[in-house]
């Protein structure tokens, strides 16, 4: 039998060792990995780490949240805005279980996180000790990797592994559960070495030029090629490479909501949003194109609609870093497996410079139809009551498209994704795959820490804001400059819309009451205003944006407005309804 070492020994930084505690080793790992901000909430089983943190106050900024779910969403917002790993602390038991929603959200939206949970002493594991839960098994399906540490000597190498896994390849959340004895244990520490390679983990495949050549051949022969892109372009930092590719090939391109903002909204080849509430042209023409080039996206059902009627006429090229995505939902003609930052330049080199003006014209025509039947009225309503679309329109005029927009989930999210103008990447932060209501407010806090120089506006509905409204306390205590825009339609609007369209208007428990948000904000020392007249809209939005510090603006919008276009569930993308 051949013998091979499990993992090659990491070379020590120096031969000198110092005696430190497991808790200190965790914080040293953070510093070595460039972490500056931690979102967390203390508790019994993580007290040794918090005790050590007391001495690291100058190097590591800890933001005390009001609920662990708020903490993990903040870390997600931080990661999405900055491109760095978001870091979370929580205690054992309820602290850890409160992370689960955020982990699931980060897993499905590929957000790099390292979460540290405290755990009861190793000798108490399995005894139903106070605040003991089996965190590893609870979080296995919703983490890219997780691990329980019961011995402090493991901490440096496991932390290195955690950061390596979280941020390489297709990013994702990692959870490290550390028993209290390991946090307290003193051990001989010989320094921290970042991990570069793990034999059972292949973040990036080798770029296979022959497949890119085949893809280029298909693209060069295409009459009606169509690009659809997702968050992979942003996660790969390949925005420039992507723009260069579509500009040279002249191919119209549409985005999934997580891919939005990778190129400016105003780019002439940006033809809009895909999917259930996406734009008319890209949905209809998905079933008309001859070559569909999918880049860093995963053919989510909200994007594809009915699969057996999805782009059946087209040959499909799929560029993705995750091999499990290839052929998962849609059978592809040519898989281009790899990091799109590496594959796109090769592809751009091989494609002919073209101008598909006639094909592009088709998008323009259908866009015009959507403008006439939906967009114009949504943004310039003839009704007395305001619409969400017009609020976004005025907001665009004031921000110039330079703000980070953090949306919650529901009608306002779809309207915001459809109408917000973006000039730069990493500007649209939203819960895409999981659809987590309550995501926006804490995620906006994190986004502000991730991009402090930028304006951060959170847009939420009257439902979602009430799910994590306690994070106003975090905003107050840390003086976080986030602008909170509540679009209040006095309903759980998206569910109401479905009940109207598909359940004969049987409005079952969607009528949600709101507190006086301005008074609530005031209690947290956050100024605010509520408006219901169109005449006040511009002034109120300006006041919010010009205010130094957090500000809450509630805008009362039409109660029973619907989001259109819409691809009803079970329908093909080309069966998209304009009303």
């Amino acid at each position: 039998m051949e013998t091979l070492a499990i993992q090659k020994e990491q070379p020590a930084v120096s031969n000198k060792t110092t005696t430190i505690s497991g808790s200190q080793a965790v914080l040293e790992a953070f510093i070595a990995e460039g972490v500056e901000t931690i979102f967390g909430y203390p508790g019994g089983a993580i007290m040794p780490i918090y005790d050590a943190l007391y001495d690291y106050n100058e190097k590591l900024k800890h933001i005390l949240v009001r609920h662990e779910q708020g903490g993990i969403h903040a870390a997600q917002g931080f990661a999405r805005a900055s491109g760095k790993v978001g870091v979370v602390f929580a205690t054992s038991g309820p602290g850890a279980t409160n992370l689960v929603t955020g982990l699931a959200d980060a897993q499905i939206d590929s957000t790099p996180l390292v979460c540290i949970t405290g755990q009861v002493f190793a000798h108490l594991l399995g005894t139903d000790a106070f605040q003991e839960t089996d965190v590893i098994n609870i979080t296995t399906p919703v983490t890219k990797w997780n691990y329980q540490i019961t011995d402090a000597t493991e901490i440096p190498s496991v932390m290195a592994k955690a950061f390596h896994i979280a941020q390489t390849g297709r990013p994702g959340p990692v959870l490290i559960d550390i028993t209290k004895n390991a946090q307290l244990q003193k051990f001989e520490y010989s320094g921290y070495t970042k991990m570069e390679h793990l034999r059972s983990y292949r973040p990036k495949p080798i770029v296979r030029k022959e497949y890119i050549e085949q893809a280029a051949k298909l693209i060069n022969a295409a009459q009606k090629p169509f690009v659809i892109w997702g968050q992979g372009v942003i996660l790969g930092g390949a925005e420039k490479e992507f723009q260069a590719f579509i500009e040279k090939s002249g191919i119209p391109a549409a985005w999934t909501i997580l891919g939005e903002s990778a190129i400016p909204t105003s780019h002439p080849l940006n033809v809009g949003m895909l999917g259930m509430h996406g734009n008319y042209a890209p949905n209809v023409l998905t079933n008309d194109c001859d070559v569909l080039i999918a880049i860093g996206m995963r053919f989510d059902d909200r994007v594809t609609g009915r699969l057996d009627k999805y782009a059946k006429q087209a040959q499909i090229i799929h560029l993705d870093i995750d091999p499990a995505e290839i052929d998962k939902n849609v059978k592809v003609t040519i898989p281009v497996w790899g990091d799109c930052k590496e594959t796109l330049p090769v592809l751009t080199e091989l494609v002919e410079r073209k101008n598909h003006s006639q094909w592009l014209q088709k998008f323009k025509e259908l866009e015009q139809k959507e403008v006439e039947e939906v967009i114009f009225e949504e943004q310039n309503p003839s009704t007395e009551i305001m619409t969400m679309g017009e609020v976004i329109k005025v907001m665009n005029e004031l921000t110039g498209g330079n703000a980070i927009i953090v949306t919650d989930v529901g009608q306002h999210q779809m309207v915001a994704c459809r109408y917000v103008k973006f000039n730069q990447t990493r500007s649209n932060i939203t819960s895409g795959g999981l659809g987590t209501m309550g995501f926006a407010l804490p995620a906006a806090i994190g986004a502000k820490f991730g991009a402090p120089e930028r304006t951060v506006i959170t847009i939420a509905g009257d439902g979602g804001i009430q799910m994590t409204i306690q994070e106003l306390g975090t905003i107050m205590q840390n003086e976080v400059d986030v602008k909170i825009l509540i679009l209040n339609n006095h309903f759980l609007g998206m569910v109401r819309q479905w009940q109207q369209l598909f359940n004969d208007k049987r409005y079952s428990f969607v009528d949600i009451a709101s507190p006086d948000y301005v008074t609530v904000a005031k209690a947290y020392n956050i100024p605010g205003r509520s408006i219901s007249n169109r005449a006040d809209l511009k002034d109120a939005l300006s006041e919010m944006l010009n205010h130094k510090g957090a500000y809450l603006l509630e805008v009362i919008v039409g109660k029973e407005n619907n989001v259109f276009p819409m691809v009803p569930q079970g329908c093909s993308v080309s069966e998209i309804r304009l009303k």
Partner: protein
Amino acid sequence: MEFKNPPSGVRGMKKEFTLTVYTENQIGLLNRIAIIFSRRKINVDSLNTSPSEIESVHRFNIVITETEDVVKKLCRQIEKQVEVLKAYYNTNEEIIWQELALYKVPTNVIAEKVVVERLLRKYGARAVVIRNDYTVFETSGHREETEGLIKALEPYGLIEFVRSARVAIIKSSSGFHDKLKEFEQLQPGESVAENEYLNERDKVFTM
């Protein structure tokens, strides 16, 4: 995984597939692999974990009854897990496999009935323990063989029966030694890993 109206060619016929998964020996990995099946409501017919031909590398054998399309996707999801080195799937024709079975029967019946003795010879059973009250036989082979002996012993008072998971060897495999060497390098050679998947897309999948 299965959708309501699968595109033509996706449906296929369900049959028995044996997955061979090479992994690190890590606590929790069994669960991580098991939930890939349970999440999709797929029943695992048999699961065995054992050492492999390489020290420190673990080997899973998992048997499921599914269409090839589903099995292929499952393989990719398994291989996507950190700490999984590689996952293969094979039909029964492509592997050599055995299952071990133990049968506990009353010794007095065995001693008295000549027919039973003949039966045991026929099924290639060996006695593991002989006591006054009972005798334990073992046999190994394919499912039909071990099952055949249960049926045969039932009339004579089969007290207990247990069968192990399937262990399988892939006929065409040349083992994992060379692959592992490549995995241990920062830049694996182009001839392994990735390429197999793209060259033989329908046959093999690799990370």
